[in-house]
């Protein structure tokens, strides 16, 4: 393992114990559902059982009469508390062809199974569920749009009554003279692909507790969200309140992985219900609700072509992408845009063009799940490269080696732009070396012998690889403040949101590096609008890069001020001082020292006495380092597996993951992020399938039907590290939160195709269930017997 990018550091780059662990390991964490307040009401939502239906009438009289029921509220009932009736959460894009802002509660038309229509409030959750079940709704079912390809056909029914079509957005991404390159290319390869991704399935589902404070007309909203500041702004807009009236805070979050960055109807309905009733209201999503109410990624159909020269060098890539958007625009077009942006990124691609159509369907809205489209884009590119390798008779690793962006061209300016119009420039890395590390780690060159030996025994082994480049650390900023109070304790507050990755440990490490090295003296407050004036929260593998940079700069500035004041009080030069634990010491003279507490008190000042010279009052530093450009991490995965041709079962035998996320602040946390992502990627490759029938009824609504990876499905995983320092931020770091998931589906597909090569089976879809594989085998056998 080649880690150790902070050789001189005290705590950076080291596997220090996590500050999060102590309460969590004792069962003393405080998750959303652990919040219990006096007089609190419990909410349950009444949800549409139809994928598409008119709501003719709602009769809640019987439900309201049940014991323990405080209220049944529909959109009409909430109107007095609402300044707006829709959630305007779509990010800007010129690609939209229609606006689909979802309502706080559906009132005339329900457009997916699970859409909330009414909120029941009762003295317990059980009573609230009884009440919701007793509400009578008169539905008139409407034609359903269940598939995004069919949705775009002429004459298709529309997912929304009265909509001109199901085309939500369209755009073209690309550069260069693609068609000319294809005309002149000696070789072309085409793939039609269907890629499915499921939900995030954090082990903790979503939840909200809203606490009205009538004396000052304030509202505290505890939410299991990745974006508390955005949630506050949206609540202010919809409830018609100023920001200083609403605090949004996050308790411990039991995983998030994307969907908790979306702002949801339940967050508004619970907040509005708390204001309407004057009582605290709690709603906790259960798993079955999570399947029908929390954002998913779902289906993409790609029709793509690759043009190469005789040596397998890429001349151009072109194609079309159709993306299932679900019923509402809850985030925008960022998932397919991320997919298209990721597709060519690891390689030198002279000309590129993908046309995108985003289709509305009567299904749960689509928004980012860990990876946010990038696994799909990588899958499309890697499938094409495998097709080209096969067509040209090249080794799959060799064709990639010839096309990977070489290290001598770094920084490599691509013609692509991010969704915000920022140039995509690959900032650092040695992609060919990374691939070679993965190949060596997996003994790629020795595989043909292993494969042949297995075949001789009637076993079918395959090996596959995939490369990815991931945009991480999305800017423009994250807020961090560092304060040393009179006790000498250090308080860090940030707009970043912790959701289980060790964000607080990461920030405490960075601050401790500058301020004494003792993480035990540092308290980090994340995800609380009362503690941080600004914040963009957790997404895009951004928090170490953006919040980490701000924490580093703020802590360094505070360190300077501490040493300056200590120098004055001790009458020595600041350069001769060091901070050790809670004291500032004269280097080499241990008895000359001063506590951080005394320095903080001196800096706080006393009425009528002058402050220490050279700076303002207090030991406080605030920073929002602004970085627009993303920093690009990369990696290569090699999967070796066996396909049981009798049952269709795929067993991954070995997985090697070589990657580069810049300097590792905490190697064990980095590996933890990668391992979690890899497990998720294995789920996407082989197990996780959110199935809807032709009426857009979800068929997988529990964890026995929708399969998450458990310990017995995990293969041996070897993680190999390269650390290429990025010049884009002061710590030289890149993000790693999503990296693990990105190449796994592509590597597994490549390996399954290799294992099934005796039948010349092409793998054109994910996930690959045993049923799918048996169907492919049976079709191939039928074809060959003709």
């Amino acid at each position, binding site marked *: 393992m080649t880690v150790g990018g902070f050789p001189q550091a005290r705590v950076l780059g080291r*596997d220090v*114990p*996590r500050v*999060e*662990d102590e309460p*969590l*390991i*004792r*069962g*003393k*964490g405080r*998750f959303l*559902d*652990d919040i*219990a307040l006096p007089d609190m009401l419990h909410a349950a939502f009444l949800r549409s059982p139809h994928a598409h239906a008119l709501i003719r009438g709602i009769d809640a009289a019987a439900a309201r009469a*049940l*014991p*323990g029921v405080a209220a049944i509220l529909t959109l009409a009932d909430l109107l007095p508390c609402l300044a707006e009736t829709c959630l305007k959460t779509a990010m800007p894009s010129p690609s939209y062809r229609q606006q689909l802002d979802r309502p706080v509660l559906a009132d005339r038309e329900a457009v997916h199974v699970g859409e909330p229509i009414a909120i029941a409030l009762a*003295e*317990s959750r*059980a*009573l609230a569920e*009884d009440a919701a079940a007793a509400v009578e709704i008169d539905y008139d079912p409407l034609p359903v749009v269940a598939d995004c390809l069919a949705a775009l056909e002429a004459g298709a029914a529309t997912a929304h009554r009265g909509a001109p079509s199901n085309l939500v957005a369209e755009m073209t991404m690309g550069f260069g003279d693609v068609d000319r390159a294809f005309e002149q290319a000696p070789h072309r390869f085409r793939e039609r692909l269907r890629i499915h991704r499921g939900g*995030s*399935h*954090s*082990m*903790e*589902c979503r939840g909200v507790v809203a606490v009205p404070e009538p004396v000052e007309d304030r509202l505290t909203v505890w939410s299991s969200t990745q974006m508390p500041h955005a949630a506050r702004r949206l609540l202010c807009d919809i409830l018609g309140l100023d920001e200083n009236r609403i605090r949004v805070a996050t308790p*411990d*979050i*039991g*995983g998030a*992985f994307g969907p908790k960055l979306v702002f949801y109807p339940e967050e508004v309905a619970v907040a509005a219900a708390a204001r309407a009733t004057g009582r605290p209201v709690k709603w906790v999503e*259960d*798993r079955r609700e999570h399947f029908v109410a929390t954002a998913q990624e779902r289906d993409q159909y790609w029709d793509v072509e690759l043009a190469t020269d005789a040596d397998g060098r890429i001349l151009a890539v072109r194609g079309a992408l159709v993306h299932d958007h679900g019923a509402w625009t809850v985030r925008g077009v960022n998932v397919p845009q991320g997919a298209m942006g990721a597709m060519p990124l690891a390689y030198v691609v002279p000309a590129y063009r993908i046309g995108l159509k985003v289709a509305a369907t009567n299904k749960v809205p689509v928004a980012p799940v860990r990876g946010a489209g990038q696994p799909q884009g990588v899958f499309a590119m890697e499938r094409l490269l495998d097709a080209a390798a096969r067509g040209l008779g090249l080794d799959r690793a060799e064709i990639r080696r010839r096309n990977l962006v070489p290290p001598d061209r770094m920084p490599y300016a691509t013609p692509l732009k991010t969704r915000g119009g920022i140039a995509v420039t690959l900032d650092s890395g040695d992609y060919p070396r990374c691939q070679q590390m993965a190949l060596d780690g997996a003994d790629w060159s020795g595989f043909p012998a292993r494969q042949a030996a297995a075949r001789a025994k009637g076993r079918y082994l395959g090996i596959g690889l995939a490369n990815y480049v991931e945009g991480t650390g999305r800017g423009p900023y994250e807020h961090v403040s560092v304060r040393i109070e009179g006790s000498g304790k250090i308080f860090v507050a940030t707009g970043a949101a912790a*959701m*289980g*990755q060790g964000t607080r440990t990461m920030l405490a490490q960075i601050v401790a590096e500058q301020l004494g090295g003792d993480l035990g003296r540092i308290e980090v407050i994340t995800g609380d609008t009362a503690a941080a004036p600004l914040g963009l929260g957790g997404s895009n593998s951004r928090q170490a890069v953006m919040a980490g940079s701000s924490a580093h700069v703020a802590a360094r500035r505070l360190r300077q001020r501490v040493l300056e004041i200590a120098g004055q009080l001790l009458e020595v030069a600041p350069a001769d001082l060091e901070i050790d634990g809670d004291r500032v010491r004269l280097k080499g003279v241990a008895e000359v020292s001063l506590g951080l507490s005394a320095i903080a008190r001196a800096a706080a000042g006393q009425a009528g006495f002058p402050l220490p010279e050279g700076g303002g009052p207090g030991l406080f530093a605030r920073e929002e380092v602004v970085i627009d450009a993303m920093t690009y991490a990369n990696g290569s995965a090699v999967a070796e597996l066996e396909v049981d041709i009798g049952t269709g079962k795929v067993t991954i035998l070995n997985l090697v993951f070589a990657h580069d996320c810049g300097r590792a602040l905490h190697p*064990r*946390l980095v*590996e*933890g992020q*990668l*391992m*979690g*992502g*890899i*497990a*998720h990627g294995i789920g996407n490759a082989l197990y996780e399938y959110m199935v809807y029938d032709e009426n857009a009824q979800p068929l997988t609504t*529990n*964890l*026995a039907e929708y399969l*998450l990876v*458990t*310990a*017995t499905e*995990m293969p041996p*995983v070897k993680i190999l590290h390269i650390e290429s320092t990025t010049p884009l931020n002061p710590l030289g770091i890149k993000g790693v939160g999503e990296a*693990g998931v990105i190449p796994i589906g592509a590597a597994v597909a490549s390996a399954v195709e290799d294992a099934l090569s005796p039948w010349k089976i092409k793998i054109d879809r994910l996930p690959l269930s045993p049923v799918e594989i048996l169907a492919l085998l049976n079709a191939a056998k039928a074809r060959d017997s003709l």
Partner: protein
Amino acid sequence: MSDGGCASRSIAVTVNGSVCRAEAPVRLTLSDFLRQTLHLTGTHLGCEHGVCGACTVLVDGRAMRSCLMLAVQADGHQVTTIEGLAAPDGSLHPLQAAFCRHHGLQCGFCTPGLLTTLVEFLKDCPDPTAAEIREAISGNICRCTGYDSIVAATIEAARALRGDGTTP
């Protein structure tokens, strides 16, 4: 908490060594009884249909899904939750300490069920292989760690519980 017109029963459950007497509605699950009635919120609910394992507690030393068991079924039995794993002096159970050392938890939501599952497992199987540990926790879903760190922590904890070798 009143629960409508549902019938209730008086129950006495020994939880983490203390006898807890309460009036429990017959439809109340053991998990809700622990979390809501006894305020022991360390036991978490991840699916409430018996698959994810987050709510696992020990009933008379056996790992049980508290979401699939009614509170009234625990009447007269001994229940141990994550809050009861540390020693009376507060020192962590070897599994808890090893989970921290090996980064066996990230968000910590599934951790209580994994710990209780493994406490029972290591009693039955004090010197397990990695494969046996994976089988033992195959009813506990963790979305964060990819499980390797949990397996490593369990091997170390097993060694500590057997009393052979030293832990760091």
